[in-house]
């Protein structure tokens, strides 16, 4: 049966309206849930650099985040920024690190997440810094959490786009990230960073507080991680210095 053009046009129009309506309805209806999902995802990642979240459910995480995280955005000089160039308020959680990475380091925005005791903003327990860099095949990124001395590593979490499975991709495993815990960033006030060594099963004598065991066969990914960490320690240097002074001041005040 060959329908007339009018029929086809009418049919198409009706179909478009029905399907389009259906889609926008779904979009509107699901929007709040979706936003919450995105938010949860970001917050989960930040928190996982300092605590174990395995047991917690979505709402609990958001609650926990609200209670324990205070976020600020700083620039390369460690100054806290409230508004962006266009005058919109800056929210640390919404900053796209990957986009910032494309700009010159001086122009980037650097979010900082302060982890404190639930409800008590003063009792800071850790600082969480997002990091970003290049692996062997593509970008790698993650968060590093430092203790209040801004020297001892409290925890790290890494992620990557396309490192070699079984080699470089191992940076996401707990086995590797645990190696960082307790290591020191500064050596006598000088930046020493935490460096992943070449090859696995290095002699214990080589693993001092600035060095961790490497990844067999993934020397180049390890090199990317090392560079990423060192870069961001430099970028956050000013902020860290200020935070340290504040902390000592506070301690002095309390005394």
């Amino acid at each position, binding site marked *: 049966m060959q329908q007339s053009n009018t029929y*086809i046009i009418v049919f198409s129009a009706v179909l478009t309206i029905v399907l389009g309506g259906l889609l926008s309805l779904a*979009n509107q209806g699901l929007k709040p*849930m979706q936003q919450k999902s*995105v938010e949860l995802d970001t917050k989960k990642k930040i928190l996982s650099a300092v605590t174990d979240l395995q047991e917690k459910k979505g709402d609990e995480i958001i609650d926990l985040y609200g209670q324990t995280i205070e976020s600020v955005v700083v620039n390369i000089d460690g100054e806290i920024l409230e508004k962006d160039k266009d005058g919109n308020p800056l929210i640390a959680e919404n900053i796209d690190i990957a986009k910032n990475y494309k700009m010159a380091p001086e122009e980037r925005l650097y979010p900082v997440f302060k982890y404190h005791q639930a409800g008590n903003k003063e009792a800071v327990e850790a600082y969480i810094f997002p990091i970003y860099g290049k692996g062997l095949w593509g970008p790698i990124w993650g968060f590093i959490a430092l203790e209040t001395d801004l020297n001892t590593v409290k925890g790290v979490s890494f992620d990557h786009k396309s490192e070699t*499975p079984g080699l470089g991709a191992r940076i996401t495993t707990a086995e590797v990230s645990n190696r960082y815990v307790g290591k020191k960033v500064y050596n006598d006030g000088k930046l020493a960073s935490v460096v992943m060594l070449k090859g696995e099963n290095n002699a214990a004598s080589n693993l001092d507080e600035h060095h961790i065991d490497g990844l067999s066969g993934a020397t180049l990914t390890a090199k990317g991680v090392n560079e990423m960490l060192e870069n961001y320690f430099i970028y956050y240097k000013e902020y860290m210095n200020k935070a340290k002074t504040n902390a000592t001041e506070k301690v002095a005040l309390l005394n």
Partner: protein
Amino acid sequence: MVEKKPAEPVLSKRRKKFVSDPLNDDNPITVQVLGICSALAVTTQMKPTLTMAISVIMVVVFANLIISLIRSLIPSRVRIIVQLALVATLVTLVSEVLKAYQYDMYKELSVFVGLIITNCIVMGRLEAFAMANKPWDSILDGLGNGLGYSWIILAVAFFREVLGSGKVFGWPVFEAIGIQNFPTNGLMVTPVGAFFILGIIIWVQRTKTGYVEH
């Protein structure tokens, strides 16, 4: 008085075949070799694979149902575009729902859910079956093909996750039975591994059924 023909049972033998045939003899992946792209891409772990499988079942069942319902209304000249529009709408819906309730899966599957649109299984069933059959039959046909697709990708995912990550649905099986440090097979994590697993499944299946390429 005209005697009424007794209604066909809801699950008559004929209808059961709609569901059972695509599971093995006429499997969309291993026999018709459709939907290979997603079979390779999403099957590193079982969880996203299951999500993908359910998504495809939903899309193909509902698309079959709707197309079958309005089949007499669809102008034949534009039927492909109508089918495409419907499938695209359903896929977008699935994608939106995933984004809202299963964000992890949404991120992981990302583009592959969208690619259900181009999955030949869906369009193929619409054109070959739903356009010419009643709604209930079409639902069964969609279900059969969806399941046929699902069990294959789940099987592939099972082997890839067990061998590649030592886990099933994220649960470390080897540690559970006392094998620590199971040497995971990196090949299984890459799409190449999926090729091999799929190849072996097809090989075994064809040896059993005696299927010969025409």
